[in-house]
């Protein structure tokens, strides 16, 4: 860890202990005369570090298993011959270790001298100056002289480009700057292997190797002719993190210099919720470094969180409030006061004319819990209605409903650490290596250690087969047949008697199970019967079911491929059934784990963003809950659920819904059936967009309130494992105010009398009103780092595992899951099925990542099509194709690949000029209205260029984004 320059924070020990922590029986030994007791299997190096003694080292770091190559950490052990390496020597009872003696000092000095003889002495101008372990170790061993010189006329180093006569050095290699975020300078490399091991052990990509041998050994990205960008490297930063020198260095540090302070905060990308240290110079962010004590990521990161923060200072960011009377007008920059006054007057005017329920809000899963809480409070306490919804509507609302019905809580059951104890994993409708990369790395580590994997996905995702990971079964189902496949798995388990009857009798409702068992045992659910429908070979499905039921701890991880269907909620329930059926709940290594798309999907749902639920998933119809909020908020709360996003848009088209406050979400790009969304927005009289950028929705807005980034505010995010992590202000908001302040100012302009001084007060109010958050406060978070809800009197330290002794709802409930085909069907005009997803380097609608260097990996959305379907249509790789559905059409380039099955095409939705959602339909989940993004019947044909809609849209967007400068 390159963390030496920053003094450790007193509340967490950030020293590098050299080798990973172990678990085992206590062993006591003596190190330099100090008694120390550590778990069996611990290295002598780590034991010494526990005793406060740092043994010099270069190739060891505590994120990697010991390697024993640098020979700097040698020690003397009584009764053993020679000088063993302390990193590879495990402790033994009664061992007597001396870390310093004349002989080891001499060895270390000699080793360092050899290292330095092939390392440039340019410390003062080196980008790692002050942050270099080689420099530190040279100091620690007292190196004063290097006696080795090259033979006359020769060059015996890797670092000098030329000798003194000007002849080129064939051993010298130029810097590799191909990666946009870090550079690889072979001249500074000491070949300690830490980067290679980090890529293998931590990230699991195996993109790095050591080529050659002896003096010729060099770190190499990919094969002989590759550079960093052309290799398999996914730019997660693990190698940069592990490198002890300036060899692998962030370009931002090369440019700006080393940081002088750091703040621990939480990543604002996906639902893994990694902890990072934002390392700063004044108010300038130098780099984001994964925090080793972050309990979600354990010191790992991905390309987005580690490097893609440049959007925060991108030139497109809007910093001044803007208003306009009509969406055809250009924007006018105005003062905050004028903008908020304008918005408040319009909203109140709409309510006066069209009624109290004619306006609403949309909260964002990218904002903090505190901000989300305030926005829903704005609707409920200030607007006086329940018209609040959130972007979780379009991703994980079925998870909330399905798990709430079966288990009693609308959340995943495990923490991420649980994956280390799992034996069989089902990944269904999720693509962790792209969508949740840090979790994927932890999963792959477990898979390499022997756990089995079953992938249920229409596409051959990377997990199905990638370096050293191979799924035991890949069930390539037809999009839309999740329920049929999961019920068929249950059929096999029940009919073959593989269920965990003891668990079911003890923990679940036995009568309901009887009904369920009778239902799934019906031969029409047999894999052989559903094979024609699902496209999954029956034999394979049978084997997969048996493996899951009998393979030990079984865990299910799922994503939006489960929820974003007309039967999304049914699939979630069928997954819950499967877990109960096999007794895989309530202990480490098992469980039902939704992988949340955005960083705070869980939090946005918890905070009462849904129109029928107050914070803590309590229905608005319940008098006691409304009374509680009435006593705190001082206003009457409407007992009628409000409008969901699709209802708001329908009502807008009908002319009954006229005003919307949309915070941090781009519904035009992310919601299905773009044309319908556009029509709804265009029909409103006041659309307030609160965002970092003039997003696509803002093209239809009348008020634009510039938002603050996650670096500019305090708050909390709740990740997919219910972990409440602190977001800390590392710099002042460039737009002037944190988002919670802006919502408060808008509320106050509308007559509320809010007076929050700090987000911690909002959290206190959440704790006061919401039982599962009762024990949460900023003081507790400061002390513990993070907690997983429920955190209350019964669980003061939070709850890593849910349903340990019993389900939250009492008895686990089996629900009959009948497969009902979606109404979206293929036919002669639209013979293919389109399914959508995301890619590693881009995030969601791309508003953030498109404004970073991440575009080098993905600059446009591509349509993946099977070679067979492509050939039928005369398409070549890279051709412009027209993608049309019953809703609309767009054009994009084709990528021919057998990752998708014949009959299935796939694309991402990261780029507004493609607008994949012009294609998607307005079919949605029966229970929660979660849109059916994952199944659309389409046709693909050759095309010459952008569709009419794309051209019209681009023209409208350009028109709508004109800004008049503020009057001088």
């Amino acid at each position: 860890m390159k963390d030496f320059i920053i003094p450790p924070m007193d509340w967490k020990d950030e020293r590098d202990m050299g080798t990973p922590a172990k678990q085992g029986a206590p062993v006591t030994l003596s190190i330099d005369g100090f008694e120390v007791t550590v778990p069996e299997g611990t290295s002598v190096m780590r034991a010494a570090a526990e005793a406060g003694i740092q043994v010099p080292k270069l190739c060891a770091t505590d994120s990697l298993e010991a390697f024993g190559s640098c020979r700097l950490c040698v020690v003397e052990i009584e009764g053993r011959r020679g000088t063993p390496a302390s990193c590879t020597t495990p402790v033994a009872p009664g061992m007597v270790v001396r870390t310093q003696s004349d002989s080891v000092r001499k060895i270390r000095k000699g080793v360092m001298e050899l290292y330095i003889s092939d390392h440039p002495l340019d410390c003062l101008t080196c980008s790692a100056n002050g942050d270099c372990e080689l420099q530190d170790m040279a100091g620690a061993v007292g190196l004063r002289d290097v006696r080795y010189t090259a033979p006359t006329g020769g060059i015996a180093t890797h670092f000098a480009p030329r000798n003194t006569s000007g002849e080129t050095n064939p051993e010298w290699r130029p810097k590799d700057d191909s990666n946009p975020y870090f550079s690889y300078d072979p001249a500074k490399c000491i070949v300690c292997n830490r980067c290679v091991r980090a890529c293998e052990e931590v990230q699991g990509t195996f993109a790095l190797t050591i080529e050659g041998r002896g003096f010729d050994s060099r770190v190499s990205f990919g094969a002989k002719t590759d550079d960093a960008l052309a290799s398999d490297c996914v730019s997660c930063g693990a190698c940069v993190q592990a490198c002890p020198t300036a060899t692998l260095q962030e370009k931002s540090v090369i440019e700006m210099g080393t940081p002088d302070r750091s703040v621990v905060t939480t990543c604002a990308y996906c639902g893994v919720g990694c902890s990072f240290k934002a390392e700063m110079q004044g108010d300038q962010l130098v780099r984001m470094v994964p925090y080793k004590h972050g309990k979600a990521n354990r010191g790992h990161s991905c390309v987005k969180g580690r490097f893609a923060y440049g959007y925060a200072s991108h030139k497109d960011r809007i910093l001044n409030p803007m208003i306009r009377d009509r969406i055809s007008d250009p924007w006018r920059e105005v003062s905050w006061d004028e903008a908020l006054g304008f918005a408040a007057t319009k909203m109140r005017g709409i309510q006066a004319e069209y009624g109290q329920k004619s306006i609403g809000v949309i909260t964002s899963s990218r904002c903090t819990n505190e901000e989300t809480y305030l926005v829903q409070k704005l609707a409920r306490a200030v607007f006086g209605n329940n018209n609040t919804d959130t972007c979780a509507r379009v991703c994980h609302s079925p998870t909330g409903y399905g798990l709430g019905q079966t288990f009693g809580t609308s959340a995943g059951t495990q923490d991420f650490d649980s994956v280390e104890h799992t034996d069989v994993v089902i990944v269904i409708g999720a693509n962790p290596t792209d969508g949740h990369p840090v979790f994927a790395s932890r999963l792959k580590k477990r898979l390499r250690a022997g756990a089995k994997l079953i992938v249920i996905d229409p596409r051959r995702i990377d997990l199905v087969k990638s370096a050293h990971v191979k799924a035991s079964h890949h069930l390539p189902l037809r999009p839309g047949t999740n329920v049929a496949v999961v019920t068929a798995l249950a059929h096999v388990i029940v009919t073959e008697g593989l269920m965990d009857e003891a668990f079911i009798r003890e923990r679940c409702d036995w009568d309901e199970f009887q009904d369920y068992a009778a239902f799934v045992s019906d031969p029409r659910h047999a894999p052989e019967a559903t094979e024609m429908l699902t496209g999954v070979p029956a034999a394979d499905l049978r084997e997969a079911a048996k493996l899951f039921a009998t393979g030990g701890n079984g865990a299910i991880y799922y994503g939006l491929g489960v929820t974003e269907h007309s039967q999304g909620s049914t699939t979630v329930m069928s997954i819950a059934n499967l877990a109960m059926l096999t007794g895989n709940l309530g202990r480490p290594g098992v469980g039902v784990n939704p992988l949340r798309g955005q960083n705070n999907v869980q939090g946005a749902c918890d905070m009462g963003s849904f129109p029928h639920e107050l914070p803590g998933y309590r229905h608005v119809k319940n008098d006691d809950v409304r009374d509680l909020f009435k006593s705190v908020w001082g206003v009457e709360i409407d007992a009628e659920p409000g409008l969901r996003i699709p209802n708001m848009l329908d009502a807008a088209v009908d002319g009954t819904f006229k005003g919307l406050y949309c915070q941090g979400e781009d519904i035009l790009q992310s919601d299905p059936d773009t044309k319908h969304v556009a029509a709804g927005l265009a029909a409103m009289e006041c659309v307030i967009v609160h965002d970092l950028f003039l997003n696509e929705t803002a093209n239809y807005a009348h008020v634009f309130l510039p938002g603050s980034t996650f670096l500019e505010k305090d708050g909390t995010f709740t990740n997919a494992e219910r972990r409440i992590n602190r977001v800390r202000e590392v710099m002042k908001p460039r737009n002037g105010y944190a988002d919670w302040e802006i919502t408060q100012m808008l509320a106050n302009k509308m007559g509320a009398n809010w007076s929050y001084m700090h987000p911690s007060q909002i959290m206190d109010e959440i704790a006061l009103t919401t039982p599962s958050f009762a024990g949460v406060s900023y003081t507790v978070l400061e002390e513990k780092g993070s907690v997983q809800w429920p955190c209350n009197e019964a669980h003061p330290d939070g709850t890593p595992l849910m349903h340990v002794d019993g389900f939250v709802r009492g008895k686990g409930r089996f629900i009959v899951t009948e497969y009902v085909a979606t109404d979206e069907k293929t036919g002669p005009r639209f013979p293919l099925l389109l399914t959508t997803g995301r890619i590693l380097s881009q995030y969601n609608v791309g508003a953030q990542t498109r404004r970073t260097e991440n575009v080098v990996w993905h600059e446009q959305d591509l349509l993946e099509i099977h070679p067979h379907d492509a050939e039928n249509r005369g398409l070549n790789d890279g051709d412009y194709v027209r993608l049309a559905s019953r809703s609309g059409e767009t054009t994009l380039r084709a990528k021919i690949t057998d990752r998708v099955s014949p009959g299935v095409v796939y694309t991402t939705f990261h780029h507004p000029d493609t607008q994949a959602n012009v294609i998607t339909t307005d079919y949605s989940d029966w229970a929660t209205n979660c849109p059916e993004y994952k199944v659309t019947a389409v046709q693909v044909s050759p095309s010459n260029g952008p569709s009419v809609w794309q051209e019209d849209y681009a023209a409208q967007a350009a028109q709508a984004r004109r800004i008049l400068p503020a009057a001088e």
Partner: protein
Amino acid sequence: MTLATPHPTETEISAIIEAHLPLEGPLLPMLHALQEAFGHVPAAAHAAICDTLNITKAELHGVISFYHDFRDAPAGRHVVKICRAEACQAMGGAALAENLLAKLGLDWHGTTRNGVVTIEPVYCLGLCACAPAAMVDDRVVGRVDAAKLDKLLAEAGA
């Protein structure tokens, strides 16, 4: 000079790869067999090896580059390896090698224009007692001097 490089077909490559799959640790035997069959490890085989063994191109590169005997292009018809380790150097091996290279107009690893002989360095053949030592294809030769070397080369047709 360019040698007529054999172009192994996909079928030939995959036959060799498949044949070694049942072995424990099949990578090195696979590489040896490929080199045996084609005189080098053809680049065309890399992707197939990686795919079959589920390893990355980086890992494969690490292994191939670690062993100097794996070639990415075929050598001449005969390979002459001259020992450059301490004992042979002490017995005049260095000078012997330099003279030979100068005579043939080659550098280390070079192949004569007629494609007959490739000269390579080797570090210890375990023949220190008979230094300086060399190896012609699979045959080791001890107490080499210029005359003996010339004879060997003449036999080979260089």
